């Protein structure tokens, strides 16, 4: 009887140690799901933004290409024979050549004349390598 009493009075052992409650687990799960959802939204947003940027860059490329073609056409028109002829007649007052005469001159050509500086392209001076400050410092030491 006493054994039975002891058995009845002894509290039942807990099957698992109680580390977390139900509520925190539920909150944690909710947060994870929310984060996953936000991650998915962020990825979709990023993909959409990238798609938008691609579209914008493609449009820019198309626009630049069109502009290049337009400029090529304008240059071609400006250098066309008809325009050159028109400018020569209207603006410069030139006329088509009548009788032409080719002259052969049996004389030495003049010595090569110096070209005025303004017609010379910028000379590319060789770059002098400059040493760094610490190299200069080291150079001062007797052993370097």
């Amino acid at each position, binding site marked *: 009887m006493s054994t039975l009493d002891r058995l009845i009075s002894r509290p039942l052992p807990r099957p698992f140690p109680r580390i977390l409650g139900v509520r925190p687990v539920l909150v944690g799960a909710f947060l994870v799901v929310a984060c996953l959802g936000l991650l998915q939204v962020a990825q979709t947003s990023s993909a959409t933004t990238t798609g938008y940027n691609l579209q914008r860059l493609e449009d820019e490329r198309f626009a630049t290409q069109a502009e290049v073609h337009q400029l*090529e056409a304008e240059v*071609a028109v400006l250098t066309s024979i008809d325009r050159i002829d028109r400018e020569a007649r209207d603006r410069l007052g030139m006329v088509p050549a009548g009788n032409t005469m080719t002259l052969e001159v049996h004389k030495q050509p003049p010595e090569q004349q110096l070209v005025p500086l303004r017609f010379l392209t910028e000379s590319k001076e060789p770059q002098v390598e400059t040493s760094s400050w610490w190299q200069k410092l080291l150079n001062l030491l007797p052993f370097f």
Partner: protein
Amino acid sequence: MPQRMARVSWRLLLLGVLFCAAGLVLTARLAQLQIVSHGHYAVEAEDEHMGVEKVFPPRGAILDRNGYPLALTLDTYDIYINRKVWQDEKLAADGAEALSSVLGKRPDEILAALGPDTEGDALVAGSIGYDAGRKIIEMGVPGVKATATIVRFHPEGDLASALQGFVGRDQTGLAGLEADLQDQLGGSAGTLYFERDSMGNPIPFGYRQLTQSEPASDVRLTIDRYIQEAAEQALDAAIETNGASGGSIIVMEPKTGAILAMASRPSFKLSQLDLADETKMELYRNRAVTDLYEPGSVMKVVTMSTAIDLGLVTPNTTYEDTGMAYVGGYAIENWDFSVNGTTTMTQLLQKSLNTGAVWVGQQIGPEHFYEYVQRFGFGEPTGVGLGGEAAGTVRTSDDPEWYPSDLATNSFGQGISVTPLQMITAVAAIANGGELMRPYIVADVVGPDGSHETQPQVVRRVISESTSRTLTAMMNDVVEGVPSHGARVQGYHIAGKTGTSFISVPGGYAPDRVITSFVGFAPVSDPRMIVLVKIDEPQGERLGGTVAAPVFAELAPKILSYLGVPPDAPALVQQGG
């Protein structure tokens, strides 16, 4: 109680059965739509939701030999209106008003372009400028769609129209070099597969799959724009002066076969192209390579080259000209009905005597004559690469319908049909030392894989160098040995030959219709250019020497000066130091 439950149960049962039956029918229908007919509806859905567009690469440019553009590509837009959307009158009126300022058309003109149909897209403006197209896109007018396209632009205007040709709305070459070089100039179109809305517009950020197009190549020709313009102006002036029906001028480098200019009339204008007019179809061909003619006395240089190359005659060999030659029952007279007595071969060419040519032809014989005719390139296309090139007609002694009189007439250029390009190529062989060069018009093709330059190609040796020198001297005597010859050019030694031939008609020749021509090259010491002038059916003067030769005399100094060829006899200004 059980009785009441039984009455309630059969009604419920019936309802249940009806619901089950309906459910089964729905399920069966769903199964039929989604499983059995899945493929069919998937394709329909894809057609409905997806659109396909061809993406054309910018078409390659056509450049002259110095790199000046003859044909370029500009980006433009075609403006379409959705007829269904514009069935709303107010929307249509507002839209037309908005578009009119950009398109430069009245609103009623824009509305009229919709036509009577109520479905589909209507093209209201084609090939409008890029900036205007972008403006319309940004305006966002409902029902308006702008489709990117490209258009061909010619900065030199109508220069070399027949040679360049033109493209259709799908940017495919239809005539001329645009068609002949379609593979190089057109590249390869790509495909854009995109998700679209119910109006057919692409859904922003929707599904897109782009297969890139293959870039096109630029083509640089051997044509020089200055020489081409000079040739076209000279041809137009000669046709107007002589009341002619047309003609051709070709300028070529005899040593390489490079064509510097090729002009033909009648022709079309690139700036006034009307493909809907079928009566103008005949203007689209390049007559310098497609049209045949009988060359007349120019052919005598081929006959003489043959005889000299075979060692049968020399420039001083003589024959007795009685003014008449009898062959196969036919009597052949000189063009001026002259009788010249003892005549040298050089004089034969100078006076362009038909009887002399017949005599030389008889010395050569049919077998050798036609062998050389074919070696000179007659009877086969030159291989220049231009579409529609004709082979010409040469009836040889092997043909069943050949008669001995054909040898006689062929020897002075009648009864044989050639193209202008064949004729100038043959005479170029005389000018360059005896080699038949393949004429070419494409100098190089510059594409994404680099530049492919055309090299001059020798087809075959036709005559020896010695024969070439001899004929050149004789042709020089033709021009300079005849007083006041129409082809003389001050300061330069010219070699050339005139030609006048009757036009063949069914049953014979038209006595009052001729083709006049002149082929000449200069300078004689080192030929840098050869020119063929052909004027068709001139009224008034009807001789090669008076119609075609003066055109050469006007054109040659411009070309020689432009090419930087010093004259053979410049005026000496100062001698010594």
